[in-house]
């Protein structure tokens, strides 16, 4: 990987962190409503995995789908940050035209097939994307990001079974941040190591440090290549940690300050930044410049776009419920 790419990846992670922090501020200002689940701390996973996949090339790329902590996955998949922020602001220019909000970012032009609020619901949808790919005989793959908490849903077991039986080209990325909302994995789940559950489905699986971008990328490359070449599912688990609460209403009373401090020492941005500085690829001054540029971009372009965009027209309330331009040959009505 070139030094320019390494710098770009560091910039992306700093950008994602600042983007999420800025949504927090906007939420406190009540410019963003609903639920807001932030990705801070887990950046290396989405950044590293999708760096190894085919993203940012439109509809010929790989499909990506995830749960409600979806802003960063959408942006790394290719959704324009302006549109993601506008969606959080509920604007007509948003990724989902203001109809979805934080938990439901969609950008089919980037093959980002959505964020979903029902925990575990994307498992079968992801397998369905892969079924479509298999049917069309392209070399795309589907990538499904979900947390460890999702793995106790029936859809997890049902989908792993079918993905294996039907040889579906889908990569399941388990972001194990140790907490299912506010319940520690040891209190909810019989095994802490989620990849071990794959032996029941005869699916290749592995577990890795999710706080180190280089480790994530190396492991993800193996997994992505396996799915793309073998046309079979793979389950990859990354041990990670979310620095903020589950959502905005979370006081984090279920975990200790000591535990948080331990994990913050492994902040994926600091780890990667320190490595690039040590390797002489970037200087501390360069990073400062980078942060200032990001700050400027988010304030003067992204937030400005979201603020200035129009809200959806109330007259359009019933738009998008069903096909708005249906073919009368199939729809009718019978008596017209």
């Amino acid at each position: 990987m070139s030094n320019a790419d390494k710098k770009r990846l560091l910039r992306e992670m700093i950008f994602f962190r600042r983007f999420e922090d800025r949504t927090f501020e906007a939420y406190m200002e009540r410019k963003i409503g609903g639920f807001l689940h932030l990705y801070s701390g887990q950046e290396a996973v989405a950044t590293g995995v999708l760096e190894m996949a085919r993203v940012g090339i439109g509809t010929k790329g790989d499909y990506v789908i995830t749960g409600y902590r979806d802003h960063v996955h959408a942006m790394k998949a290719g959704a324009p940050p302006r549109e993601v922020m506008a969606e959080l602001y509920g604007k007509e220019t948003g990724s989902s035209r203001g109809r979805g909000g934080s938990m439901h970012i969609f950008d089919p032009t980037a093959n980002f097939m959505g964020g979903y609020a029902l925990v575990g619901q994307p498992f079968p949808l992801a397998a369905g994307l892969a079924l479509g790919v298999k049917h069309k005989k392209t070399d795309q793959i589907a990538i499904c990001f979900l947390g460890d908490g999702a793995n106790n849903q029936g859809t997890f077991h049902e989908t792993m079974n079918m993905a294996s039986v039907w040889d579906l080209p889908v990569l399941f990325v388990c972001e194990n941040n140790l907490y299912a909302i506010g319940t520690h994995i040891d209190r909810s789940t019989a095994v802490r190591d989620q990849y071990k559950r794959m032996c029941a489905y005869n699916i290749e699986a592995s577990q890795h440090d999710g706080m180190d971008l280089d480790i994530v990328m190396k492991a993800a490359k193996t997994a992505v290549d396996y799915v793309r070449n073998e046309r079979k599912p793979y389950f990859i688990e990354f041990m990670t940690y979310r620095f903020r609460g589950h959502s905005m209403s979370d006081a984090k009373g279920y975990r200790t300050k000591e535990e948080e401090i331990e994990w913050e020492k492994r902040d994926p941005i600091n780890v990667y930044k320190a490595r690039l500085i040590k390797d002489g690829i970037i200087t501390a001054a360069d990073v400062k410049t980078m942060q200032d540029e990001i700050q400027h971009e988010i304030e003067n372009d992204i937030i400005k776009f979201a603020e200035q965009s129009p809200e959806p027209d109330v007259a359009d309330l019933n738009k998008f419920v069903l096909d708005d331009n249906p073919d009368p040959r199939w729809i009718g009505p019978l008596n017209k």
Partner: protein
Amino acid sequence: MAQLAYWEAIRRAHDEEMAKDPMVIAMGEDIGVAGGTYKATSGLYDKYGADRVIDTPISENSYTGIGIGASMVGMRPIIEIMSINFALLALDTIVNAAAKIRYMSGGRVQCPVVIRTPGGTAHQLAAQHSARLARMFMSTSGLRVVTPRGPIDAYGMLKSAVRCNDPVIIIEHERMYNIKEEMPDTEFFRPLEGAEVVRKGDDITLIGYNYSVYLCLEAAKRLEKDGVSAEVVDLRSLKPIDRETIRRSIEKTHRVVIAEEDEAPVGVGAEIITGIIEDCFFALDAQPVRIHAADVPVPYNARLEKAAIPDVEDVYQGALKVLGKI
């Protein structure tokens, strides 16, 4: 023209749509090698292969979800859920995903998936195989719900459902699979929307859908012997409901009975009658009557089962009541 049974009509629709469009696939429990519980997909496995006629494990929520996911990338899956009772296991993916994805993506992603499932009581199948649930699906924004009553609609509406860009729930009925009708040999389509006047009459309107249309038609024959001319309307679509056809009929007959196999309260009849009150209250000469199933889990015992669900006699008595004859 040929006589085709309901199940044969469904199979023919599958066959034609699969032959025409490679994106059409069929999925469900036992639909492939075994040919389907109601034979509606028999022979298709041999013709189209395991990749297009997919035998699924018994995992309703997730195989339905896989079909929905595939529809998001251009596939046209026809999913069979063996009993509408089992569709409850798939409610998350149907109601929370398929019905909402177009809306919550701002119209950018669609789910053109077809879900076929039989509802209704048959022959002492007891509480867990006799659910109706039409009322549950018709209350969900973002779905289309249709109830083909005979082979012509079973064929023509399935073909339309496959081509329609919305998620369509097709509610069949265990007691309809062997009903036969004369059908043209050439391809045709039946639209998903619009009620149908299946018997013309002047004195009273009997409204049914799915199997209850037959109860209405039989009751109409009995009423004819009493000198009463009954009009029978088949709703065909429960979402959306064709209120215009209902209104036109009632403005002619001024009296109405709605027959449903779903339980009341909170049934199809409640919604139909509300619509009538909103649309043509002053056209009514008598209060509407709804005939519905008892508000009990369907019993196993044959006598109890019969008592729990509406029959021709119930619809006939309901009509007499509206007519002021009892």
